[in-house]
């Protein structure tokens, strides 16, 4: 039994099957992007153990094809196992060993990145300072105790918790939050415009005048979901303060009082706070003369880090990011009228892996194919002589 398992995992057939499955998966996943959008297709096809059918929950689902994580993991095991079994230290095999060692680093690095990298962004208008970046998709319900004018006490509840739990009970809050409705994507309309039969989902704040309609998930590269929820605030000492509508589409946070303290609530993109701050000095968007073809985008920012006594100006532009304290800031975009810059903020501890892997694999392939070529030309010379 053990022997058969070893034979299976070290076989070249398994390698070829995995590679072929990867091709089919990538082809299907690429075509799926047309309808699903890059993010959704990526989740379903590449960052999963299985591709499921049907994708929407209809009470049942069956796996129809191995997903990217499964194929990658099997390939990695196959690669390592085959080399452990067949490894022989001979010069003839140097190229093959190097190539595959590089591939192991690359696959492992890819898996590591998938698990640990965090991507977020920071949008800054001229002169604005921020010490946090925002998640591109994930939301959070921020409950802020603003009673003390010097110090805000923030309790952030991730979107996934709102989606899964009906009642949220945090030790830091004197009340429970009951999720009445949750909309992954929604459209908000004023009641007066929504027509007859539309009813508000909330009875407090501006939500009492707004109708919420559920909407299908956004698929475009530039689109994002407008997440909304109706939440009821239930003090732990009994009673109810009413129901509020919180939504990504509502600008200002809403205020209420409970247990003698003042609270603000808002559903906003999840934030990642930094021990330093970034201030936008100037955003520049150059175009080629008499065209709309962008020539250059650049953001001049001031980086202030009291802990490390850093206070300096940095120019972030295309292909020239700022790397600071394990995070990298890229010039990613801008608001339509050039009023604000958008910086992509990436924390990826394994970003170095592909660089190393590339060099090793390229060297391995060169050695291996060079070895073939020398052999071939020797034979040919012998044949001609």
């Amino acid at each position, binding site marked *: 039994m053990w022997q058969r398992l070893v034979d299976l995992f070290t076989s070249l057939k398994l390698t070829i099957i995995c590679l072929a499955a990867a091709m089919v998966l*990538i082809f299907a996943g690429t075509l799926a992007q*047309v309808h699903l959008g890059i993010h959704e297709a990526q989740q379903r096809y590449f960052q999963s153990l299985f591709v499921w059918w049907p994708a929407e929950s209809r009470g049942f689902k069956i796996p129809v094809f191995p997903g990217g994580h499964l194929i990658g993991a099997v390939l990695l095991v196959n690669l390592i196992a085959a080399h452990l079994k067949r490894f022989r230290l001979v010069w003839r095999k140097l190229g093959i060993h190097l190539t595959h060692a590089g591939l192991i680093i690359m696959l492992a690095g890819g898996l590591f990145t998938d698990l640990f990298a965090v991507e977020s962004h920071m949008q800054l208008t001229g002169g604005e300072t921020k010490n946090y970046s925002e998640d591109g998709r994930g939301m959070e319900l921020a409950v802020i105790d603003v009673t003390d004018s010097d110090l805000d006490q923030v309790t952030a509840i991730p979107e996934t918790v709102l989606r899964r739990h009906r009642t949220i009970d945090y030790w830091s809050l004197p009340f429970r939050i009951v999720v009445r409705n949750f909309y992954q994507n929604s459209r908000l309309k004023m009641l007066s415009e929504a027509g007859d039969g539309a009813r508000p989902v909330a009875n407090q704040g501006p939500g009492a005048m707004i109708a919420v309609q559920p909407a299908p998930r956004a698929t475009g590269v530039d689109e994002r979901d407008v997440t909304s929820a109706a939440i009821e605030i239930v003090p732990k000492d009994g009673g109810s303060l009413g129901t509020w509508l919180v939504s990504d589409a509502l600008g200002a946070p809403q205020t209420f009082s409970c247990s003698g303290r003042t609270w603000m609530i808002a559903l906003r993109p999840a934030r990642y706070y930094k021990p330093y701050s970034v201030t936008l000095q100037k955003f520049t968007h150059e175009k*080629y003369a008499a065209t709309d*073809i962008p020539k250059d985008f650049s953001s001049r920012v001031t980086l202030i880090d009291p802990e490390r006594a850093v206070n300096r100006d940095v120019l972030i532009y*295309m292909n020239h990011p700022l790397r600071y304290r394990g995070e990298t800031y*890229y010039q990613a975009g801008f608001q339509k009228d050039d009023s604000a810059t958008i910086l992509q903020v*990436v924390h990826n501890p394994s970003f170095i892996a592909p660089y190393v892997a590339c060099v090793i694999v*390229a060297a391995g392939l060169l050695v291996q194919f060079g070895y*073939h070529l020398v052999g071939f030309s020797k034979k040919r010379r012998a044949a001609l002589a």
Partner: protein
Amino acid sequence: MKRFLPGIILLFAVSWIAANWLPHKLAKDDVDLTKFGKIPVLVGGRMKPLDTVARNSLLIVHGKQELRLEGGERLTAMQWLTDVLFSASAADQYPVFLVQNAEVLGLFGWEQSDRKYFSFMEFSPFLKQIDEQGAQSEKLESVQRSAYQNAILNLRNSLSLYQRLKNSVQPEGAENFAAELQAFESSIPAAGRAASRRAAGEDFDKSKLDDVVALMQRYERLSEMAYLLAVPPVEPNGQWHSVGDSLLRSIGMGEIHPVVKQYALIGDAYRAGDYSMFNQQVNLMTAWFAKEQPNAAKRTAFEFLFNRLQPFSQSMALYVLAFLLACFSWLVWSRTLNRSAFYLLLLALAIHTFGLFSRMYLQERPPVTNLYSSAIFIGWGAVIVALILERIFRDGIGAVCAGAIGFITLIIAHHLAGSGDTLEMLQAVLDTNIWLATHVVAITTGYSAMFLAGMLALIYVIRGVFTRSLTKGTADSLARMTYGVVCFATFFSFVGTVLGGIWADQSWGRFWGWDPKENGAVLIVLWCAIILHARWGGFIRQRGLMIMAIFGNVVTSFSWFGVNMLGVGLHSYGFMQKAFPWLVGFIISQLALMAIAGMPLERWRSFRAGSVSSRQPRKQKLEPTVAGA
């Protein structure tokens, strides 16, 4: 005779090229559009000669770089542009606008007939309608537009380009523009005095002011319309301006830019039919640019030369000829024809290389910057590798591949050039020569090698199945070549793909984003890995290798073109609806050939049991006669 044939064929080819390249002699009283065509202007962010503007504009509106009038007379792009710039009423009558969509024609109450070219005059009653319909289609994403919507939008854009060209160096319909400018220039000081008196609340001469204001409104319209920025900066590192813009600025300067005046004199002479005056004024303009803008003048003169030589069309013709010679070499006169094909291919490659490097010089960029240049480069790379193979094996196979791939890639490039300037400026994110020179070149070299391997496999299958010419020796060397080229492709595809990831990591912070173009690249790498492992594991032999190499053509064409047609992702530059049927046709043909190759070996003419034995005696019979001779 046979010994000298390769040399003679080469000599013919060289003299044919030379005859095409030598400049035509100009009759004394003819318009010198060669000189005029070299004048630099700024369009699309790039300095280029008027000749390039003429060719690209005519290509956009007409689909060709030459115009044939109803009487059969041919106009070059420069002749057409000169009429558009200076003599709009004549140009309005030319049938230039290409419309083939029946629904668009129906919009004007016209039935579809043999005519597909229409003049501006014919459209002039419908301009408003075309503009409205076009504006509606423009709101849609290009993927969502119907054939009608695409056609009406194209027509609107063509008409707008044409009208802007007409108002580029002088207002449309201006008669004696040089005199008008002189009057304008001389009235500036008086008007300036009047304006300052009015500002001070004193009496002022209203008529002096009104003259200038009327003209200024005219020039304002001109500056809004202008397509060309024809006026170079006065100070170094300054900006180029349109003629209208420059005229408005001349109020502050007190004088009109010499180039503006010169264009006016050239235009007046042209309209008056005074061609010696036209040539004289063009010479003055050329001299002005040579003195004031020497770099611009040098570069645009070179681009003019490049336009006239048409290196890619010339090498395309040579590739076809070489391909045919190499094919015939398998039937008769094998050494002679083989050598002739090789010489022709060297000549074609030299011209192809000249074209490629000229583009690099003009653009100051690595060779591949858009889909058009990728086609040029893929052909170039494949031809070089194929010629190296030919040098090693000397059996005509490399030559056939070089001829076929060179020709096909240049044809593809020719059809990709329809959108106008192929030396367009690069989007900000692509503006990095390091990555263009490494990632893009490596990836496209990988494509070249994949197509070459596929071509070798096609030769194996076609010769093996349909002819008796695939001997064991040829089959073995084809297999060796294919294997070697697949290794080459693996290396470049892998390195190119990973370099692309590193570029993405440098500019967006993610190494891999599952973007369609990235996926296409990794499909090629995976397919190469499968071929190599299947061969090493002994799962496939010669024929299996060939079938898989043909499928490499399918994978590569999907990666090169297919993913762009999906219209998603960061690399979706250029959605090409027109190319879609061609891509599908190509893929079906490759799959069909794979199926044919999958037939049992007894059905292959070369491998039929009888064929080998029937060949042997014939060969033996021949030998005595050869010996006897």
